[in-house]
């Protein structure tokens, strides 16, 4: 129904009262409907209930492991270079295995800086970093604790 302003209103609408009664009927209908069946209200009670996220959802990062348990990351720095927010810090070290060449001594993501664009995942040649954990509520009390270290990223 288009909104009517000023001159467009008929006399009946200008009287207000009939329209007010109509409006009251609508709100009462909603109130009674929700009073009788509160389970129909669409609210998601957040801490207890959570919305399920799709598999494509870009949530908290995780580092993927090799079969032997060590990180797949070869510290090529493509993710850190690609990151528009500059939130990835990697310190590379030489790997014992001559076939691997490098591994990350530290791998740190500042989740407060991260804009969750997913470019690190796109850039990674080894599929070592993924954002498929589905975790989106990374709240904490200090900035330092939101600089996620390698161990934490490997855990999830």
């Amino acid at each position, binding site marked *: 129904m288009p909104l009517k302003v000023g001159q467009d209103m008929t006399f009946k609408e200008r009287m207000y*009262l009939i329209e*007010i009664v109509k*409006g*009251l009927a*609508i*709100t*009462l209908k*909603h*109130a009674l409907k*929700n*009073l009788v069946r*509160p389970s129909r*209200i*669409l*609210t998601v*009670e957040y801490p207890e209930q959570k919305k399920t996220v799709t598999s494509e959802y870009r949530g908290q990062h995780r580092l993927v492991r090799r079969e032997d348990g060590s990180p797949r990351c070869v510290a090529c720095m493509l993710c850190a270079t690609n990151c528009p927010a500059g939130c990835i810090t990697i310190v590379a070290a030489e790997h014992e295995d001559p076939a691997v060449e490098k591994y990350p001594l530290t791998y740190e993501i500042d989740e407060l800086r991260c804009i969750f664009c997913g470019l690190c995942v796109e850039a990674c040649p080894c599929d070592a970093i993924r954002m498929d954990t589905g975790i989106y509520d990374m709240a904490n009390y200090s900035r330092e604790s939101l600089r996620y270290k390698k161990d934490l990223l490997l855990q999830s």
Partner: protein
Amino acid sequence: MEYFITLAKIVFILTFQFGLMPLFIWLERKGSAYIQDRRGPNRAAILGFTLGGLFHVIADAVKMFVKEDSIPENASKILFSLAPAMVVIPALLTFAVIPFGNILVLGERVINLQAVSLNVGILYIFAISSMGVYGIFIAGWASNNKYSLLGGLRAAAQMISYEISLGLSIIGLLMIYQAIDLQVIVQKQGFLFGGIIPAWGVVVQPLGFILFIVAGFAEVNRTPFDLPEGESEIVAGYHTEYSSLKFAMFYMGEYINMVVMSALITTLFFGGWQVPFLFNDGFRFYSWFLALPPIVVTLLQVSSFALKVMFFCWFFVWTRWTLPRFRYDQLMRLGWKVMLPLALANIFITGILILLFG
């Protein structure tokens, strides 16, 4: 003994007002949620019981107590502190003359269930309730804040404009009942037209009722007339600068005002404590008769009054979440160009009808 009875009545009235206020606030929050398809307050719990969010009112009160009580540096400190009290006290005082039950005869003793039996009842109500605007206006001025001042100005202009319609809208009622003592007005509403239709104010003065309820909404600054607060335009109006318990008192005053206005609507237009077909000795409908002891009759009457008041409390909530706010020129146009002529016409027509048929 007389003192004890008066004291008991005062305690009852204060308990009624202060008891209904948290219920009202709860009703507002839960009702608004259900109207808007939300769940509303459901977190605050004592021993795991939430009682549908009723404890949120207590949690709010505790929060108000522990908040910092700040006074702006350039505010008029005495008036700033005085204003909240000047809103709450008239609101509490108004209830004194509203009857919550019939005159109860217990053996020798006659108890009028009305805190003060004033023969100028309705005039007292208008005299006291119009004091409320001073509190709001002083709050707006003393805050030394442009938004507060605008809110106070709006409140003053609005309340004065609508008080005229409020006063005039019940003149017709007073003409019909020939009384201004509220207890007498309620007693006269017990009359039954043709033995079926009760002579409630809304039956004999439908136009007066509509005018009174609209002006009443404006009088307690309630949506669609909540321009003095108008948060989308002037932050929070007259109580922008208030915090802590001073703000709580404004909040309380607003809700107590609404309880009083509900009680007034009930008393004047919905038969006050009257229950249809209930007389002093029991229910009577033509030849059918059910005798009841006087104490049961009184209890029925008091609960009837309380229920009607609660219905109008809900009505205040209900309209708030239905209607948007008026624009300021619309508000003034409605007040002076529609309500005032209609109220005068109502008096005129009522007068003619009384002359012809009275």
